[in-house]
């Protein structure tokens, strides 16, 4: 049986170096294994020993793993690591930390005292399309002649669909602009994905200072009032899963 080391998170220990070991004695990793820290200067990795063959790509293990990161994030600035990330030995981990120290520090600084919040905007995109269609029917009517062939009719139909798609995307862009304008006062870093599915038209994540949670809820509440046809769901606070930007050397 070859043992490896599974990494949960990369932490900054500059403010409370002694606190980490005490915290780790009180929490367990996936499947109840013990956790410990491997440190280089003011950065520590929270890890556990594991047999590679025992890593199961299973939902409940991933949830347990996320639970550990969540507990650590309550007390430390950290960079979450993807479930199943393993390295061979303490030595290789220390070397990796040394090689990437500056970049890790930079990322830790970026997320210091901040949490991630997720905003999903759902709607019936077919309903929006129908509304746009009614509003703009005459505007996007393609050229017609009295003797259209089936091919010309086909192009006309496709052209209309194309214009509706464009208008729908423009509508989503307007909503995104509104969200970014309103949330700008909270000074967040944000990332947006559009049209994740026909119903999930916006999937956004914000990196906000920990004490801005209530302000964020207020912004979303105001947005919901402005767009009653949409359904806004705000979640968090999360560890900064979407704001780690490191290429490990």
């Amino acid at each position, binding site marked *: 049986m070859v043992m490896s080391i599974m990494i949960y998170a990369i932490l900054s220990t500059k403010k409370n170096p002694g606190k980490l070991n005490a915290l780790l004695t009180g929490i367990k990793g996936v499947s109840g294994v013990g956790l410990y820290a491997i440190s280089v200067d003011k950065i520590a990795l929270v890890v556990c020993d594991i047999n590679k063959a025992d890593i199961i790509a299973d939902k409940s293990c991933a949830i347990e793993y996320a639970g550990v990161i969540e507990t650590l994030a309550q007390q430390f600035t950290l960079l979450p690591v993807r479930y199943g990330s393993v390295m061979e030995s303490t030595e290789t981990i220390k070397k990796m930390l040394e090689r990437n120290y500056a970049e890790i520090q930079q990322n830790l600084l970026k997320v210091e005292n901040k949490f991630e*919040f997720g905003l*999903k905007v*759902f709607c019936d995109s077919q309903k929006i399309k129908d509304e746009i269609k009614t509003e703009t029917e005459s505007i996007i009517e*393609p050229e017609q002649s009295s003797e259209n*062939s*089936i*091919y*010309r*009719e*086909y*192009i006309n139909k*496709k*052209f209309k669909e*194309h*214009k509706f798609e464009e208008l729908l995307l423009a509508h989503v862009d307007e909503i995104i602009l509104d969200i970014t304008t309103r949330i700008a006062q909270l000074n967040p870093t944000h990332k947006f*994905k559009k*049209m*994740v*599915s026909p*119903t*999930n038209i916006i999937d956004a994540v914000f990196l906000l200072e920990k004490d801005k*949670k209530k302000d*964020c*809820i207020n912004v*979303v*509440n105001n947005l*919901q009032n402005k767009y009653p046809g949409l*359904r*806004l*769901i*705000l*979640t*968090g606070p*999360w560890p900064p899963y979407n704001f780690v930007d490191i290429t490990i050397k």
Partner: protein
Amino acid sequence: MSENKILFNTGSLDELSQEVTNLTNNEDSKLKLTPDNADSGLAKLVLTLVELIRKLVEKQAMRRVDGGLLTEEEIERLGETLMKLEMKMEELKKHFNLTDRDLNINLGPLGDLM
């Protein structure tokens, strides 16, 4: 997702749960290649790529129509080509027993392919 992580939600939790399930549990859109289904799995993969390219061609064509630079004759020919491509694609999907949903592969965090 635990309830205390939901900071704002105007609907019921059941509705939310359904929305999230729809986003994450798109089993039809996953490529499942095994020794037993190599033929149909490969057909799905190839047709997915063909469909993606066909849709890109169609989008580009619509941009050209929108640009107003095509003659009536060119639009006719474009219409004929695109229509025949779509019909051929429908034939192939039928032949391999695939639906539009099957060809819209889920790319995980990147969302659906099309």
